[in-house]
């Protein structure tokens, strides 16, 4: 019986961990090109889920509703780069303004959503499987929704890892993160890559939003905010910029917080993630898969 409990916690941990990994991946993407992160990602998760609910309630097929919402959210990525990140990076006397401006834009989106969709939680429709669909693994019921989340996260992470390691464009993205000016004089279309990274990052947030709204069954304007914090912990734990690190960090945070939540107290669920973050920063600041700076004068 104890084992069943442990197993179900583990499974829930892996599933939410996969979502944290997706969020971490989204944060990594913009970190690659600009060394910035969109802390308003949580609102994009919410927006994408809300839009999906809205569009499907208008009679649109589920797949179309999701794709349409993802496109809208990706367009928001362009807006965020142009109006919250770029001005902050160009402002003189400090380059950390983007932390506040991206977060601020997220809060703004949250407010707009509360005004037009209402601040009540709305039921989220089933995208691929319903909450009643399950398979049996080792005598345990495993929700198919959990498995979809995990499969999507792993597939996206593998795809990005392959893109970065094996294609010249992936190398170019890496180059932009290392030295944007040098990338520019080498003919790499830096602006295009930066915009692309923000679009893709926002779309990833949208995917994570739809996936987790499906598991929770509801979505409200405040949805996503604390998830981004945990995604950030996952990204730092795994090593900023590393896709494999995002996956490992996400799973670690997810599993640990669920286990602590199950055996100790649900109140400690989120706290433990930040304790882990502090520990990691003290012991291994470059993260599990991060590489320390290479340099020689």
């Amino acid at each position, binding site marked *: 019986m104890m084992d069943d409990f442990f197993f179900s916690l583990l499974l829930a941990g892996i599933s939410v961990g996969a979502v944290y990994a997706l969020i971490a991946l989204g944060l990594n993407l913009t970190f690659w090109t600009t060394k910035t992160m969109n802390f308003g990602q949580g609102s994009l998760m919410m927006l994408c889920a809300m839009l999906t609910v809205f569009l499907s309630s208008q009679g649109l097929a589920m797949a179309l509703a999701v794709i349409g919402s993802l496109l809208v959210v990706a367009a928001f990525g362009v807006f965020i780069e142009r109006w919250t990140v770029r001005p902050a990076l160009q402002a003189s006397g400090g380059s950390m303004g983007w932390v506040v401006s991206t977060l601020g834009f997220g809060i703004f989106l949250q407010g707009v959503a509360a005004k037009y969709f209402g601040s009540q939680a709305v039921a989220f429709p089933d995208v691929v499987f319903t909450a009643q669909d399950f398979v049996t693994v080792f005598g345990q019921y495993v929700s198919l929704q959990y498995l979809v989340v995990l499969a999507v996260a792993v597939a996206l992470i593998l795809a990005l890892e392959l893109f970065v390691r094996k294609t*010249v464009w992936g190398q*170019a993205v890496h180059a932009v993160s290392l*030295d944007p*000016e*040098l990338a520019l004089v*080498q003919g790499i279309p830096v602006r295009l890559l930066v915009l692309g990274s923000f679009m893709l990052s926002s779309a990833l947030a949208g995917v994570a939003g739809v996936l987790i709204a499906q598991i929770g069954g509801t979505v409200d304007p405040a949805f996503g905010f604390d998830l981004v914090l945990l995604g950030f912990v996952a990204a730092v734990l795994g090593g900023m910029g590393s896709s494999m690190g995002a996956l490992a960090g996400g799973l670690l945070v997810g599993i640990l917080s669920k286990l602590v939540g199950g055996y100790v107290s649900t109140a400690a669920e989120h706290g433990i993630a930040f304790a882990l973050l502090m520990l990691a920063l003290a012991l291994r600041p470059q993260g599990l898969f991060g590489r320390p700076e*290479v*340099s020689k004068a």
Partner: protein
Amino acid sequence: MLELQGLTVRYGAVQALEGVSLQAGAGGITAILGANGAGKSSLMRAVSGIAPVTAGRILLDGQDITALPAAERARLGIAHAMEGRRLFRQLTVEDNLKLAWSFGARTAPLAASLAETYARFPILKEKARIAAGLLSGGQQQMVILSCTTIRSPRCLLLDEPSLGLAPIIVQQIYAFITDYAARSGIIVVIAEQMAALALRVSSHGLVLRRGRAVLQGSSAELLHGHDGKTLAASYL
């Protein structure tokens, strides 16, 4: 032919370059000389498109490129080895070369271009899989030079290629540059603090002082000129 007409570069309140004109022909080396802060790097950066040009024009083979963004100029064939030994330190030597080739003119296939580079600098083949930031200064300079030549450029800008290197390495680097300039017949512009060195290999020289062109002429004349003092004086 690279032509600058009354080029002015301004960073906020700081005037880095003022009304500088220059004609750098293909098939020879043009030397840009001057003390620290004279505007050599600003001139180079203006040509490759990463310095703010507030007045004047830049023409490459007659085409006005003053308004073109940097990445587009790179695609037109301008290759710039920036000052301060700039390369992607975390990437391996080979990845640096591959990247430079990928976004260059690609006139020769990658394998052939790499083979040619390694034949010229065998040490780079040995270090191909090592992060470029871990190489010695001279080896890094070889990577940087190779990254520009592997792009098959039309116009090569080299900013202080000798800076901080041992004399023997400087000789090797300069031997490569002169040989490459003669072989390729492209436009080569070198900014140097070591005037005598640059004037020996160049055909034409421009001396900058506080952002203004103070002397211009054939390198032989600048080096051995009727009054040997002119060049030295412009440094003061």
